[in-house]
């Protein structure tokens, strides 16, 4: 199979997944950040900055992995390589995503315990 075609499919698919997931997280993560900062304008700014960093890291990583493709001469090999590469990226996204949720949760908990401490 044509190597350039496989690369194009890979780049488009990976970028599409990244952008769709990023939009969803940007929309829903706002409330978690708002819960943490209690300031709408500041939360919006932080959310936008996080989205920018997310896009840069992910699309950069996708661009790096293009050069690590194996042989894609036949259709079977192309499917296998594509699935392995896209699967790796989606798995990394999932792990980072749960990591982010845990970090936000721990931060808001710490904030709550400080507030409780001040109140007593």
């Amino acid at each position, binding site marked *: 199979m044509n190597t350039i075609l496989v690369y194009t499919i890979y780049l488009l698919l990976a970028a599409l997944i990244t952008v769709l997931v990023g939009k969803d*997280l940007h929309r*829903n*993560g706002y409330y*978690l950040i708002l819960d943490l900062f209690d300031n709408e304008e500041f939360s919006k700014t932080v959310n936008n900055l996080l989205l920018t960093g997310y896009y840069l890291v992910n699309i950069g990583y996708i661009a790096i992995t293009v050069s690590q493709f194996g042989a894609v001469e036949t259709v079977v090999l192309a*499917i296998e390589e594509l699935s392995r590469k896209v*699967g790796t990226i989606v*798995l990394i996204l999932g792990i980072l*995503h749960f990591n982010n949720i845990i970090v936000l949760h721990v931060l808001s908990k710490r904030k709550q315990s400080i507030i409780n401490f001040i*109140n007593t």
Partner: protein
Amino acid sequence: MTELIVKTYIAYLPIAILLTFIVARIFFKNSKIFMLDIFSGRQEIANSTNRLFETGFYLLSLGFALFRMKINKSQFITYKNEFVEGVRVSTEELSYGMQELFETLSSKIGMLAVVLGLMVFFLMFMLFRGKKKSAEGRARKEELQRMQEI
């Protein structure tokens, strides 16, 4: 032979995606009530946390499904050694028929289903733990208020 391998992949992908979507829909339709309880009735943050967990669930399970898609072809290759005029000639043959297709497909789908089940149980454990923790936090807060009133 390679046509059948491609057919296996083409059959595997929709089944895996459909399975993930069905499991996620059932789970996250029912987890909303837990989230409302954990965030003590705050609708917005409960809904968005539910959605965030749903996205993460999709990412992990579809990522696993894609990551484990490759068929290990070495188990279907048989090696034959023949002696032609005193010289050993070894040939390798890929035998991949309908039987192997069904066996591979069922083992891959089964693996994915087991992983999805484990993930669902883990998330259920997290939800129950969160429910317990939020109830404890609420009790502590009430106690603090009572102490301040006194």
